[in-house]
């Protein structure tokens, strides 16, 4: 069998495939179909200090070969998550990545502070695409200085490794990556959705403003991974438009140490187990011994 294990912050994941935050509920919802302990790690829905109700419907809209979502960071809050769902992951011995956010710096920091280290928690994934309500709703992740300051503060309140999840709606994503790195980030997740809107020509309105996800993100995510991996020497988790194992392999070759699958799960809920199986076969069939042999191998 191919060796699919990867190291992430001192922990060994059985394989480098995870769900993308917000696309696998609280984990338990997948139970009827397949055992999520087969994934490398489970990434939580974006969590915050307090519960958030999220946006009114409609929250999703189909786009040509992709979708727009405006869930609005609906979540039960960190306390409820740990009380209600952590036992589930403990029973499975499944590593967990805690995706979290805040609508202010204080919320991020307080949230990070309250998350206690746990043998299953691989790292915190700070979703920097969240709008900063105090700063007029501009997201934290857009300015290197803001990212630097926020990541630095988050790092100062937690012993858990911290990865910064970046928005592609920036001038130059590797500048942002650099800022996160300088501030002490232990890794990066690239990329979040791209903002877009839908115009309904029959009703002459805009039913949804949200984030685009799906296969068209792939070339943009790959570019981000390639560029950031050239500048920043910390592990990168790749996400954006992965639909099958070939896409996943492209992400590894571009420099991702692990990948996350989001929207594809909605189209085919077995996408993740299929990818895990198929990258194993790929590794074997090409005569590699380990997934590590293909990470970042692309020539430029």
């Amino acid at each position, binding site marked *: 069998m191919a060796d699919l294990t990867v190291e992430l912050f001192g922990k060994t994941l059985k394989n480098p495939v995870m769900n993308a935050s917000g696309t696998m509920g609280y984990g338990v*919802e997948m139970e009827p179909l397949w055992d999520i302990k087969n994934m490398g790690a489970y990434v939580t829905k974006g969590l915050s200090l307090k519960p958030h109700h999220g946006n009114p419907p409609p929250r999703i809209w189909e786009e040509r070969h992709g979708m727009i979502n405006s869930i609005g960071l609906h979540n039960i809050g960190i306390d409820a998550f740990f009380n209600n769902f952590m036992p589930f992951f403990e029973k499975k011995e499944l590593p967990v990545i805690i995706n979290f956010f805040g609508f202010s710096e204080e919320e991020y920091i307080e949230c990070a502070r309250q998350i206690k280290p746990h043998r299953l928690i691989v790292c915190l994934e700070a979703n920097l695409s969240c709008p900063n309500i105090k700063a007029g709703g501009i997201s934290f992740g857009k300015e290197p200085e803001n990212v630097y300051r926020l990541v630095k503060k988050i790092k100062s309140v937690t012993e858990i490794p911290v990865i910064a999840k970046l928005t592609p709606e920036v001038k130059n994503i590797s500048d942002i990556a650099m800022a996160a790195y300088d501030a002490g980030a232990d890794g990066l997740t690239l990329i979040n959705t791209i903002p877009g809107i839908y115009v309904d020509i029959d009703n002459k309105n805009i039913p949804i403003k949200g984030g685009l996800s799906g296969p068209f993100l792939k070339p943009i995510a790959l570019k981000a991974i390639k560029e950031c991996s050239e500048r920043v020497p910390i592990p990168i988790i790749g996400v954006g438009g992965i639909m099958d194992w070939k896409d996943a392999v492209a992400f590894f070759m571009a420099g991702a140490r692990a990948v996350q699958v989001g929207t594809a799960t909605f189209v085919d809920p*077995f996408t993740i187990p299929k990818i895990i199986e198929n990258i194993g076969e790929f590794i074997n069939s090409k005569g590699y011994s380990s997934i590590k042999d293909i990470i970042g191998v692309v020539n430029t």
Partner: protein
Amino acid sequence: MRDFEGEVIKNEHITKDFFIIEFRLQKPIYAIEPGQFVMVKIPDERVFLRRPFSIYDCNKNSLSIMYRIKGEGTHYLSKTPKGIKTQILGPLGKGFNINFEDHLKPVIIAGGIGIAGVHLLIKKIKKTPDIFYGCSDEKEVKLIEDLKAKHVYIATMDGSFGFKGDVISLFERHLKHYQSSICIYACGPEAMFKSLKEKIKPEIKCEVLLEERMACGMGLCFGCVKKTLDEKEPYKRVCKEGPVFDIWQISL
């Protein structure tokens, strides 16, 4: 819940833009609650997400859906020939609660394609229900052809068949006779639920089947929510906590 491979064995035009499609499932499906639904992969590459449809009818090895052409997805579905195979995820969601108290008379109200959502309920409910069906015209009465044996009150908007007007107005005429000894199951447009809620007393048990845009259909994305009166957690997932809700708990 399972992701079934289904082969189209029938895709029949009923009337206007209504169709019934039937799939042979490659594995048996069990334990379906009326009101549950499936997510169907439309066998056309132009359609990205799956589409939710109530389970119209179901045997161990086959499942059918009654659908109306609404947009691209249902349009391509209507063009799908026999023999095509596709993926069908289900059964999904929480169906109707059919364990009502013995003294209650079940009343089923359906508007238009809403009949698809209560069809299996009508078949499976243990006590004979009164059925109210409303649609736009005589032609749509064809959708309940197989219910002819049952007692169905029919309303058409244009008066071309039965009562002239909407189904809730028709139901209202009968309401006083029932007093409070009924339990209602309804499926149709939200406007119908709104008007229904205004007409009945809060003592009356009433469950409604809601629709919302869905991405995953199984609780993963939190995309399909409806607002309820639960203050702590107002937005409930239609695909998981629903699609059937207590009418008194949702905000219409």
